[in-house]
C-alpha cells in the first residue's frame, strides 16, 4: 500500500494540534489560578499580622490613651493634611467606591522606587509613597504629612563668618566645602507624626527617614539620579526617638523643599534585598500612602498597573477603591479609548482639543478643563552668543536679540500653533507664580522698529539683494536647530523663516534627532535653538542664566553673562525670607526681559477631559486638585456595583 498523506492523516494531525493547544491553554489557566491563590494567601498573611498586632495592643492602649491626652494641646497646632478630603466627604452625593482608569502613553518598565527611570513610575509611586510634608493645593503653604512639625535653624551668619575666615587664610571653595568644622548653614529638624504607619502595619519611624537617605547613597544601588539629588544634603541624622535633622552645607532657599520632598521608604522592607536583586527588581513598592500595590513584590511589566486603596492607611482614605492605568503607546489608540469610555481622563493636544470640543456627544459625557498650568513650562529660542571659535557671534549684541524678538509675532504663534491655548511668555517665570513681574511688558511685534535696531547694530542691506549684511559684508544667515519629527516645531520654524525674511534675514531650519541635538547642545555647537523648559512653583534660574553655568554640559549653553543678574541670582538663592526673595526674582525677570538671552515664546495651557461621572474636580493653584479628593456618587459608579 502506498504511504500517502491523505485526508484522514490531515484530520488526525489537526486533532493532535487542537489537543496540544488545549493542554497549553489549560496550563495557562492553572497559572492564573496559581497567582490568584498566591495573592489570596498574601492577603491572609497580612490580615493575620494585623490581627495579631491588634491582639497585642490592649497592653499598650493605656499608654496610648495617656499620651494622646497629654498631646491634645499640641494636636490642635498640627495642621490636618486631610481637611480637603474631609470637605469632599461632606459633599452631597459622596460615596466611596469605583475605579479611576487612566492611561499612560508608554509602557512602564519598573515601579521599584530609586531604580525606575520614567515619569509614569514616579506618578504611580506618588500614591504609594509619602513625604514628610506637602503643599496645600490652594494656599501653597507646606502642611505636615508624615512629619507633625518642624523648625528651621538658620546658621547662615556662622557659616558666612567661617567661610570668610577660611578664605582670608587662603583656602579654596572646595577645601572649605570639605572642611569638617564647617557649620551647616541650614538645619531643619522634623518631628515625626505618631501613628503614621506603612500599609503593612509597621509604624513609620526616624530610622525609616534616615534609611530613605542612606539607602540610595550606597554606591551599590543603581540610583545615580537619586544620589545626585541627595548629595545636596550634607547629612540626615536621627536626633531623637521621633526626630530627624537634615543639614545643608550651603544656604539655599530650596532647602526645606528638598527635605520635605524626600519619599520615605520602609526600612524593614527594603533592607532585606541584596543590592543586585534590588537593582534588577521591577515591582518592589511599599509605602505609607493612601494606595498600595496588591502585592508589594510581584508586579511585572506588561501586567496591568493597578493600585488598591490602603485600608490600613493612617489618615483619611480616599474615595476611589482602585486606580488603574492602561499602557497605550499609540496616541490614536489613547484618544479612541477615551472616546469609547474605556479610560476616564485624557490630556489633549491643542489640535485634538479643538476637534473634540466640536463633538457634542463627547461634551455631554465629559467635563472639560482648560487652564493655565501653574507648574507648566515655556517654549523659547536661545541665541548662542559665542561662535565655534569662541569669538562673540552676532547674537552677542543685545540689540540684535531684541530686534529678532520683535520680528517674531508671538500672538500669531499662539493662535496658529497652540490654537489660542496659551499665553505669551515675557520671562522664565509662570504668570501664576509669585516670581512673575506683572510690570514687565512683552516686546511688541514691530518689523520697522526691528529693522531700525538692526541698522543701529550695523546690519543693513548694502547690496540690495534683499538680505541684510554686516559691516564686513557677511550676510545675516543662521540655522535654527530644533527637535525633529515634531510638527509644531517645524511649523514654528517656517513661520519664523517667513517673518525674518521680511527684515532681510535668512533662517535655515535645522531639525535634528533628539540625541544628536542634545550632543550639539552640550558642545554648544549651534547658532540658535528652540526648546522648552519645565517650571515649578518657584523655579531657580541659576542653571540657565548664571554665567558660571556656561561650562561644557552646562545649561547656560548660550554663554550669556550679566554681572548684575549673576549677583542677584546668588543673593536670591541664599535669601530664606520669601518676600525679599520674590522681589529679587521679579528684578531678575525685568533684567531677562530686557537682555533677552532667550526670546521667550509662550506658556501653553493644559487641556484636560475627565469623565462626567467623577465629581469634586476643581482648579487649584497647582492645577487640577489632587485625585484623592475626587469621588463618584453611588448610582453613577461604573466599575463596582
Amino acid at each position, binding site marked *: 500500500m502506498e504511504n500517502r498523506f491523505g485526508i484522514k492523516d490531515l484530520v488526525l494531525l489537526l486533532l493532535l494540534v487542537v489537543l496540544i493547544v488545549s493542554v497549553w491553554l489549560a496550563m495557562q489557566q492553572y497559572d*492564573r489560578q496559581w497567582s490568584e491563590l498566591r495573592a489570596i494567601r498574601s492577603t491572609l498573611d497580612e490580615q493575620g499580622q494585623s490581627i495579631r498586632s491588634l491582639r497585642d495592643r490592649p497592653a499598650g492602649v493605656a499608654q496610648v490613651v495617656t499620651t494622646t491626652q497629654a498631646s491634645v494641646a499640641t494636636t490642635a497646632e498640627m495642621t490636618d493634611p486631610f481637611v480637603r478630603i474631609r470637605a469632599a466627604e461632606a459633599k452631597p452625593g459622596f460615596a466611596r467606591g469605583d475605579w479611576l482608569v487612566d492611561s499612560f502613553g508608554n509602557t512602564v518598565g519598573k515601579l521599584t522606587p530609586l531604580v525606575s527611570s520614567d515619569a509614569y513610575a514616579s506618578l504611580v509611586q506618588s500614591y504609594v509613597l509619602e513625604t514628610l510634608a506637602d503643599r496645600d493645593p490652594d494656599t501653597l503653604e507646606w502642611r505636615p504629612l508624615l512629619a507633625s512639625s518642624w523648625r528651621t535653624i538658620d546658621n547662615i551668619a556662622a557659616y558666612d563668618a567661617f567661610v570668610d575666615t577660611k578664605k582670608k587664610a587662603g583656602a579654596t571653595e572646595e577645601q572649605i566645602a570639605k572642611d569638617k568644622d564647617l557649620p551647616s548653614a541650614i538645619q531643619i529638624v522634623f518631628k515625626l507624626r505618631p501613628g503614621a504607619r506603612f500599609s503593612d502595619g509597621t509604624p513609620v519611624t526616624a530610622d525609616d527617614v534616615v534609611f530613605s537617605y542612606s539607602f540610595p547613597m550606597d554606591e551599590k544601588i543603581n540610583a545615580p*539620579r537619586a544620589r545626585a539629588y541627595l548629595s545636596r544634603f550634607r547629612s540626615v541624622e536621627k536626633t531623637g526617638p521621633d526626630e530627624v535633622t537634615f543639614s545643608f552645607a550651603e544656604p539655599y532657599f530650596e532647602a526645606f523643599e528638598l527635605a520635605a520632598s524626600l519619599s520615605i521608604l520602609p526600612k524593614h522592607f527594603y533592607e532585606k534585598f541584596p543590592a543586585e536583586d534590588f537593582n534588577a527588581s521591577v515591582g518592589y513598592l511599599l509605602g505609607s500612602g493612601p494606595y498600595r500595590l496588591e502585592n508589594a513584590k510581584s508586579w511585572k511589566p*506588561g501586567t496591568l498597573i493597578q493600585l488598591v486603596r490602603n485600608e490600613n492607611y493612617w489618615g483619611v482614605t480616599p474615595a476611589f477603591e482602585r486606580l488603574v492605568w492602561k499602557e497605550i503607546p*499609540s496616541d490614536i*489608540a489613547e484618544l479612541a479609548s477615551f*472616546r*469609547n469610555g474605556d479610560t476616564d481622563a485624557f490630556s489633549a493636544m491643542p489640535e485634538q482639543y479643538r476637534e473634540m470640543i466640536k463633538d457634542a456627544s463627547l461634551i455631554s459625557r465629559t467635563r472639560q478643563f482648560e487652564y493655565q498650568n501653574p507648574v507648566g513650562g515655556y517654549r523659547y529660542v536661545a541665541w548662542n552668543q559665542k561662535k565655534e571659535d569662541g569669538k562673540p557671534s552676532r547674537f552677542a549684541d543685545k540689540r540684535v536679540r531684541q530686534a529678532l524678538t520683535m520680528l517674531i509675532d508671538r500672538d500669531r504663534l499662539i493662535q496658529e500653533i497652540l490654537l489660542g491655548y496659551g499665553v505669551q511668555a515675557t520671562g522664565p517665570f509662570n504668570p501664576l507664580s509669585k516670581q512673575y513681574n506683572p510690570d514687565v511688558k512683552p516686546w511688541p511685534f514691530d518689523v520697522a522698529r526691528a529693522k531700525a535696531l538692526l541698522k543701529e547694530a550695523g546690519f543693513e542691506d548694502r547690496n540690495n539683494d534683499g538680505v541684510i549684511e554686516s559691516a564686513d559684508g557677511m550676510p545675516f544667515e543662521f540655522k535654527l536647530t530644533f527637535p525633529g519629527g515634531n510638527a509644531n516645531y517645524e511649523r514654528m520654524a517656517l513661520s519664523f523663516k517667513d517673518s525674518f525674511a521680511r527684515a532681510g534675514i535668512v533662517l535655515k531650519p535645522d531639525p535634528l534627532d533628539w*540625541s544628536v541635538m542634545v550632543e550639539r547642545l552640550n558642545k554648544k555647537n549651534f547658532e540658535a535653538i528652540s526648546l522648552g523648559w*519645565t517650571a515649578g512653583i518657584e523655579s531657580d534660574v541659576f542653571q540657565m542664566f548664571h554665567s558660571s553655568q556656561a561650562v561644557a*554640559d552646562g545649561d547656560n549653553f548660550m554663554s550669556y553673562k550679566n554681572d548684575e543678574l549673576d549677583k542677584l541670582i546668588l543673593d536670591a538663592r541664599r535669601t530664606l525670607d520669601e518676600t525679599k526673595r520674590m522681589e529679587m526674582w521679579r528684578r531678575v525677570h525685568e533684567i531677562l526681559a530686557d537682555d533677552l538671552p532667550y526670546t521667550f515664546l509662550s506658556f501653553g495651557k493644559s487641556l484636560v477631559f475627565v469623565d462626567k461621572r467623577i465629581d469634586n474636580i476643581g482648579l487649584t493653584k497647582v492645577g487640577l486638585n489632587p485625585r484623592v479628593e475626587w469621588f463618584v456618587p453611588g448610582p453613577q459608579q461604573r466599575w463596582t456595583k
Partner: protein
Amino acid sequence: MLSYILRRILLLFPTLIGITMVVFFVMALSPGRVTDSLQASEANMRPEERQRIEAYLKKRYGLGDPLVVQYGRWLNRVSPVGFKEAGEGFPRSTTIGFKTPDLGESFIRRRPVLDIILEALPVTLLLNLITIPIVYVVSITSGIWAARKRGQAFDVTSGVVLLALYSMPEIWIGVMVLGFFASRDYLQWFPTSGTHDVLAAQMAFLPVFVDGVFHRGWLLDAVWHLILPIIVMTYGSFAFMSKLMRSSVLENLTADYARTARAKGLTEHVVLFRHVLSNSVLPLITVAASILPGLLGGAVIVESIFGLNGMGKLMLEAIKTKDQELILSQTFVVGIIGLGSLIVADICYAIADPRVSYE
C-alpha cells in the same frame, strides 16, 4: 549531507560576529552618548549632577574603555566558550572554558536583558504563530484555485484584490481599522489596544452565561483583543504567497509528468491534488525560511499601534534610547534564529525534493 550541515553551522559563527560587530560599531560611532536619552527626564539637573551620573554609568558598564575592548568584552560575555572567572562554568579551575552566556543588563531599563526579551517574545510568537498559518492556508488555496481557473473571473479578481491589499500600507490601515471598528463613533466591535481587558483578572476562563448575560471569559477576551492586530498583520502578505503558489502550480500543471498522468486517464482533480501539489509547494518552503527572522524581529507597526509589547517594539525603543546591550542582544538572538532557520529550510528543501542533494 552531514558535511554540508556541519559546514553551514560552522559558518554561523563568523556571520554572527560580523553582524554584531557592524551593529556595535555603527551604534558606538553614531552621535549622542548613552546618557543623552536620559536627559529628557533630567532637564532640571545641574551639570555636576549630570556628570556624576555619567561617571557612574561609565564605571558600572565600562563605557570609558576603547570600543574594541568593549566589543570584545561583550562578545566574551555572550559566548558559551571564553574567558571566565575561575570557579565558574566547566572546567572549574581554569580561566578559559565553557560558561553560561550572559546577555547583559540594559542601561535604560536597568534589568537583565534576558528577562526583557523573554517577556517580549511570547507576544510576538503568539501573533506570528497565528498569522503564519492563516497566511499560508489562504494563499495556498487562492493560488491553487487561481491556477486552475487561469484567466477566468476568480483568477483576475483575486489578483487585483490581493494586489490592492498589498499596496495599502499597514500604518494607514491600522489607524483606519482602529477608527472604524474600535470606536464609539462608528462600529465598536473590537477593543482599541492591549491584550487583555481591565477586568480580565476576574473573568472566568471559558465563556459563560450568567443570568442570561453573556460573559466573554478570559480566553475569548484574549482572542477578541488579537483579532484586529492579526487582520492588520495578515492582509498584506496574501498577495506574495498566492502569486508564488499560482505560478508554481501553473508551471507544474504543464509539466511532462502531469501530461503523462492525464494521458493515463486520471482526472484533472487527481492530477492536481495527488501529483502536482506536492511539487508546487517547494518554493513556499524556501520562502518560509525568510519569514522566520521577520517573525522574531516582530511587526513593529502593528505592535506600536495596538500597544502589544513584542520584539519589534522592543527593538524600536532600544534604538531610540540607544540602549546598547539590548540592541546587541536582540540582534544576536534574532541573528542566531534567522541563520538557524535558513539552515533548517535548506535541509527541509533537501528532504522534500529528492532531486536536490548537497555534496
